[in-house]
């Protein structure tokens, strides 16, 4: 240590700080290429090829792939809050379901107002002994209002919940347990017929979205492409965040919160920011998911659903954005196949994979790729 010579040294070039914020020029090209290939390829192979072609993508696969894309978005949201900020939420199903329900309300209202149901109300109203919709359905016939609700309500709810929890210094496993309790309580609430959201049947029988019939293959293909574009936009946003100074602060929050506090950061503000953003991303995923699967019900709020979201990220590689998305795709791909082929085995398989990754592959599936390449993702 040369205490005596405190002269300034020539600044070394090429620091993480001065590098490009999202991608290098070539990185942007690769990224755009992947997005265009996926968002364009699926509609192309589904719509443009004749049904008897060997390369034709069957209609039933398009919404399935769309569902996977939604899960990839959820994984990004989970990774921000858990992989980077170190806050394990086991209640992200709440935000996913809120986004999904708002979209469901919109789709129900649009069809009801277009006279596509037997009554002037969404179908679930038929067995409720009421002759008007609950007050909070007001405005949901309008897409802008519905979109605003998808973004604002989960955001405000997450902010309020996070404020109470983080301000009380609830962290670690206690926070995880509280979020589990939250999703369980929400599930019970949404099961009630009196809640005015379709009770245990939830909302279904959707017809049109923005004027396009949802049963049409072209609409479904377009929905898939829009979902992929949303995931791509979220990825760019997340990548910006984790490469900006705030990304390093979040890692500091995760690994040494008190150190961060004593260099002058208020952890509460950072936790609230990333928690709320993560919740909103998850709500967007839920809203995109519902028109593609055609139903939203309280089952989405089961505690196990939220736990699965964390497992996707753990399996793919927490703390890496690509890893998180890879985990969502791999686990759900396996789930689609296993639940059809060996439905009884799925939960055992999931548990086994989770344990195996925790024990032998702490960096997740992505570390298999990056380890071989010998570099960082």
């Amino acid at each position, binding site marked *: *240590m*040369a*205490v*005596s*010579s*405190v002269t*300034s*040294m020539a*600044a*070394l070039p090429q*620091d*993480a*700080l*001065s590098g490009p914020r999202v991608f290098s020029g070539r990185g942007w090209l690769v990224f755009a290429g992947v997005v265009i290939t996926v968002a364009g390829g699926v509609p192309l192979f589904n719509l443009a090829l004749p049904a008897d072609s060997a390369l034709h993508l069957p209609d039933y696969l398009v919404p399935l792939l769309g569902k996977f894309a939604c899960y990839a978005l959820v994984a990004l949201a989970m990774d921000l809050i858990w992989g980077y900020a170190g806050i394990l939420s086991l209640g992200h199903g709440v935000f996913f379901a809120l986004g999904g329900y708002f979209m469901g309300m919109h789709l129900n209202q649009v069809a009801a107002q277009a006279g596509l149901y037997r009554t002037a109300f969404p179908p679930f109203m038929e067995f409720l002994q009421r002759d008007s919709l609950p007050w909070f359905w007001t405005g949901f016939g309008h897409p802008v209002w519905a979109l605003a609700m998808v973004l604002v309500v989960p955001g405000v709810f997450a902010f309020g919940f996070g404020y109470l929890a983080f301000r009380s210094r609830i962290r670690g496993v206690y926070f995880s347990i509280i979020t589990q309790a939250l999703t369980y309580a929400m599930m019970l609430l949404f099961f009630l017929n009196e809640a005015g959201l379709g009770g245990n049947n939830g909302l279904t029988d959707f017809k049109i979205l923005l004027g396009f019939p949802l049963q049409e293959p072209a609409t479904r293909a377009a929905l898939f492409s829009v979902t992929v574009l949303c995931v791509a936009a979220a990825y760019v946003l997340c990548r910006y*965040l984790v490469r*900006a*100074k*705030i990304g*390093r*602060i979040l*890692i*500091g929050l*995760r*690994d*040494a919160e*008190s*150190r*961060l*506090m*004593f*260099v*002058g*950061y*208020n*952890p509460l*503000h*950072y936790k609230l*920011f990333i928690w709320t953003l993560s919740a909103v991303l998850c709500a967007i995923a839920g809203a995109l998911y519902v028109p593609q699967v055609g139903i939203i019900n309280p089952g989405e709020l089961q505690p196990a659903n939220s736990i699965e979201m964390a497992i996707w990220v753990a399996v793919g590689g927490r703390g890496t954005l690509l890893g998180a998305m890879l985990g969502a795709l791999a686990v759900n791909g396996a789930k689609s196949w296993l639940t059809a082929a060996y439905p009884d085995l799925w939960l055992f398989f999931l548990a086994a994979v989770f344990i195996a990754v925790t024990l032998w592959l702490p960096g997740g599936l992505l570390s298999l790729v990056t380890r071989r390449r010998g570099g960082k993702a």
Partner: protein
Amino acid sequence: MRLPGWLQNRAPVGPSADLAHRLETGRGVVLYMESVSVSFDGFKALNDLSVYVDEGELRCIIGPNGAGKSTMMDVITGKTRPDTGSVWFGQTLDCLRREPWEIAAAGIGRKFQKPTVFEQLSVFENLEVAMQADKRVRASLFAQPTAAQHRQLDEILHLIGLTPERGRLAGLLSHGQKQWLEIGMLLMQNPRVLLVDEPVAGMTPGEVERTAELLNALAGKHSVIVVEHDMAFVRAIARKVTVLHQGSVLAEGSMDQVQADPRVQEVYLGEAMA
């Protein structure tokens, strides 16, 4: 004192009339602790402790294990709230009414007893996170270090001898290097007061010597308060020594004065002071 903007906007909470008088007369004093008591479940970790530190002073705090040295730093930095007493930084900042991040931003930096760095960040990134700046969320979203800040980063890296390790993960550093990195992180905050808790624990003799050099070089520009057990080290840096025992000051003065004090000898049973 230069406070960040968000602190300046608040109405300053002034010291009590009695204290204000002494704050005014005691020019050059940067940190006041007066009659501070802390108890944990009835056990008095600090007992009516008063310590005053001058601007630019290098002060050593010694005392047996459990004397309350780390607790004293906890009180100054807002981690522990005392039962009674007052703690003032400069003339206007009441440490007992501020949150830890406010106290840090106002200019009190702290190194923990157990070295704490961000292990998953590189050495360079550790310093960047610590760097004096607007530390609110919005600023952190768009922050782009200026040329001057880059220069400061390089200087501090050089000062703590970690220039060759700048890109290395902090978790991979040796124990002594982590201690230096943490000191570097304090310096990045441009603090007026540095609280350094046991900086040479686990260091090799060569590292201890260089740490003494470093702290000596910092005194004058900053007020430095060092808690240490290593008597050779204390002897190498100390100008004024405060001996803490059972939560209060047992003796204060130069190293020789303190060592000659029979009460101090009794506490240390002679051996450690040899």
